[in-house]
């Protein structure tokens, strides 16, 4: 069972963030990982870039789920961003991305990582919920949506 609430904090959610491109997005994710979760931003940036070199983590439908495993984490952590303007992400459907859900797991947490990926993927397939995420005007509104009771996600 993956509980999204355990992986998110209010500081890990941003609505309306402006980034120029994928590299700038990853730098922001790294910086927010430090602010929200106290994780080394250099390790996060390296991991995200390394994972992306392997292939795009664009999920389709304007959503990306960058993810990876890094040393030193004790649990799965998440960052959720709604971008002010979509950016190119070389996604599978070529659509630009405006919703980003980053997941990082402990280096030895392979099974947990897969559960978290499954849970977030399932959540992002719910078109009604995704529309609500896109409509969330503030960080608080976005956090409240993600933290709502029905988002206790089994996987």
């Amino acid at each position, binding site marked *: 069972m993956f509980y999204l609430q355990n992986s998110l904090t209010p500081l890990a959610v941003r609505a309306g963030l402006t980034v120029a491109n994928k590299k700038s997005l990853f730098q922001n994710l790294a910086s927010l990982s430090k602010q929200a979760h106290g994780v080394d931003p250099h390790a996060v940036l390296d991991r995200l870039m390394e994972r992306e070199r392997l*292939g795009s983590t664009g999920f389709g439908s304007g959503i990306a789920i960058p993810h990876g495993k890094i040393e030193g984490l004790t649990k799965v952590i998440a960052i959720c961003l709604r971008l002010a303007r979509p950016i190119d992400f070389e996604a*599978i459907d070529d659509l630009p991305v405006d919703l980003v859900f980053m997941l990082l797991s402990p280096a030895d947490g392979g*099974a947990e990582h*897969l559960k978290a990926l499954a849970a977030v993927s399932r959540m992002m397939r719910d078109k009604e919920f995704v529309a609500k995420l896109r409509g969330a005007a503030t960080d608080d509104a976005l956090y409240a949506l993600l933290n709502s009771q029905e988002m206790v996600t*089994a996987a």
Partner: protein
Amino acid sequence: MAVRLTTKLFINALMRRATSLGGHVTVLAHGDDSAGGLLLICLEKGQLSAVLERSTDAQGRMVWRPSFDQLIENKDKLLESLQKRAAQDSDLWQVELDIADAERFAADFIAEG
């Protein structure tokens, strides 16, 4: 009660989904059609990214468990180990999946199961 697909039907469904998304699936070892285990060898653009074994959790839900983690960086040893597993367990399927973000694809596929 949830209906559990046979292994062959599960693999066929996985093949259809992967192919529809531009991925490629190759059966390396053909196991038991109905109840064989499954090792999914995940590649991205031909580069090995993970080996996942289909399993069940304490609640009886289907899950993937990472397997051969320590051999991901050593393809020759991994292939040797996979061949040993195949020799020890003739019911085990070994399937190679090459698709963008293969781990997420596999996790997503089983979650929809």
